């Protein structure tokens, strides 16, 4: 079971340049969170601050009673063993081959025999699709493979908190989709708290339970996936649409003149009819995987939150859940059909084992957007 990471009032600057200030958020236990933000807003610095590699000037990061920012090194080192961090370019040890790289944490921190280590390492390498590459050294493989090897190494200790730094950069879209699915499956299996730092909108809109966004030295949004996607905030809306129009410029922010010019252009143009933003279905564990207990807890948490949310946000959550449920139903039907085909094709053979796809948590029966009082 994952553990909660509570960040409070975190502020970091390099010299006179403030990276971000007063960031307060909580990564709920076992839930998947994505941290978005334009390039150069200090997402990686934030990730490294969570694990105590970078010491912010102010604020606390609490992980099961340990303050990763201010506590003495000895305690921080011990707490780090509960983390798995996937670095942007893998950060594999160049002098060791992939097998030894992935076995490194096991050999350092456990008393497992070589046989056990071998079993675990091969299993994790198989999980990330690197079976058969054990003998290669990091210099011989592509960036995407290094990244996957980095993930395998992060997973090998069965961490309670997994931090992924841009898991998608340098990967093709198919591998990115596989990796997203893999992250969700891992979460279902070990119920680890996950934070994914990315600027990939596909991952941000389908994978997480919660989304946060860093922009211009502030955490401008943090909340359930659906509410952030449906947010009307110009920064978030521009970022999620990948549109050049909006407050985000090529350098970090546009200047006033450019914004005014843009507003004037927009005013002259016929405004497109406002339509509700589509909330995509959330990715679900693969067939055969257990339910995500994080998802169930998240649903309960959001249900409790619902009455206090504005109407639009609650509506977005409802649409997101409906989409997820529909997608799950379609997937289950397709799987059943495939199983039946397989069964009819090989009638005398014993029934092939079918794993039902895990079902999403049900909509609460009393679910009704606030404002629609009977």
């Amino acid at each position, binding site marked *: 079971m994952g553990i909660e990471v509570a960040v409070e009032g975190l*502020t970091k*600057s390099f*010299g*006179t340049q403030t990276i971000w200030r007063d960031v307060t958020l909580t990564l709920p236990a076992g839930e998947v969170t994505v941290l978005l933000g334009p390039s150069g807003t200090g997402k990686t610095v934030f990730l*490294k601050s969570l*694990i105590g*590699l970078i010491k912010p*000037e*102010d604020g606390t990061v609490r992980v099961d009673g340990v303050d990763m920012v201010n506590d003495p090194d000895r305690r921080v*080192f*011990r707490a*780090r*063993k509960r*983390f798995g*961090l996937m*670095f*942007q*370019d893998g*950060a*594999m*040890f*160049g002098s060791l081959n992939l097998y030894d790289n992935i076995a*490194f*944490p096991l050999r*350092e*921190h456990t008393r497992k025999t070589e046989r056990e280590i071998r079993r675990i390492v091969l299993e994790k390498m198989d999980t990330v699709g690197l079976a058969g590459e054990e003998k290669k050294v990091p210099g011989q493989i592509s960036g995407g493979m290094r990244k996957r090897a980095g993930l395998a190494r992060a997973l090998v*200790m069965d961490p309670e908190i997994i931090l992924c730094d841009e898991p998608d950069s340098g990967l093709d879209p198919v591998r990115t989709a596989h990796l997203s699915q893999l992250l969700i499956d891992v979460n279902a299996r070990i119920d680890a708290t996950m934070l994914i730092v990315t600027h990939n909108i596909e991952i941000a809109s389908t994978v997480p339970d919660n989304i946060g966004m860093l922009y211009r030295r502030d955490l401008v949004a943090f909340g359930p996936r659906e509410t952030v996607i449906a947010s009307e905030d110009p920064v978030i809306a521009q970022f999620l649409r990948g549109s050049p129009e909006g407050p985000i410029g090529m350098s970090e922010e546009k200047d006033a003149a450019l914004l005014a010019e843009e507003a004037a252009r927009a005013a002259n143009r016929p405004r497109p009819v406002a339509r509700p933003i589509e909330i995509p279905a959330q990715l679900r564990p693969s067939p055969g995987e257990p339910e995500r207990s994080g998802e169930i807890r998240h649903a309960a948490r959001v249900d409790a939150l619902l009455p206090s949310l504005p109407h639009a946000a609650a509506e977005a959550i409802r649409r997101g859940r409906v989409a997820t449920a529909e997608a799950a139903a379609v997937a289950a039907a397709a799987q059943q059909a495939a199983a039946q085909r397989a069964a009819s094709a090989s009638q005398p053979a014993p029934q092939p084992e079918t794993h039902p796809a895990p079902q999403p948590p049900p909509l609460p029966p009393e679910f009704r957007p606030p404002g629609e009082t009977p």
Partner: protein
Amino acid sequence: MTTPQMSVPGAAALRQTGRLFALAGTVLAMTFRRPFQLRELIQQFWFIASVAILPTMLVSIPFGAVISLQVGSLAKQLGAQSLTGGASVLAVVQQASPLIVALLISGAAGSAICADLGSRTIREEMDAMEVMGVSPIQRLVVPRVLACTAVAVLLNGLVSVVGVAGGYFFNVELQDGTPGAYLASFSALAQLPDLYVSELKALIFGFIAGVVASYRGLNPRPGPKGVGDAVNQSVVVTFLLLFFVNLVMTAIYLEVVPAKGA
């Protein structure tokens, strides 16, 4: 809450010095923390010895010869030719040998250590190690510093012997010195504490070479150029420190240990 950034001139240099000393202290403390990285130590020891032995020997022969020739010709002018041996032995054992060893360890092994650690740092390997709860200082730096120190101490013996032998050869063969007088003057002027302080110097110089190389390797500027600069600086800084520490140690030694016969 945040402390204001001080901009006192020279503060940066002081900060660097402080960090260097902190690293040296951490290395000493971590040396006794288990698990001890024996394997890494042996590998590093072997590596440093293999890159340092040959150049050290090749440098020490002409160095011993030069000292011997210079002292020999000076002694001849003064009419003290019979003491040439003792004088050149003192110069070789006390001064030349530890310095040669340290300079070559810093140049041959320190630069390699600095480049190795530096490239690991910019590839985030150090961060990765820390994230996995393994201290890079204990795991990588301690074995390297200990290996530098041990190789320096052992090589110092070799260089002393080779330097003295070279001096003997040149004095006896080229300057027509008397072998008997050369050897006899050893015990007339030199004493055992000369050898002890020589080994102590080698130990401290080797430690400095290892710590400085590791410190620069752990803190390079970002990018491959940063690593190159770090290697360059590590060698220069080590040289400066070596000559300064040598001055201090020599001064103290000459104060504390009376010269033989005095």
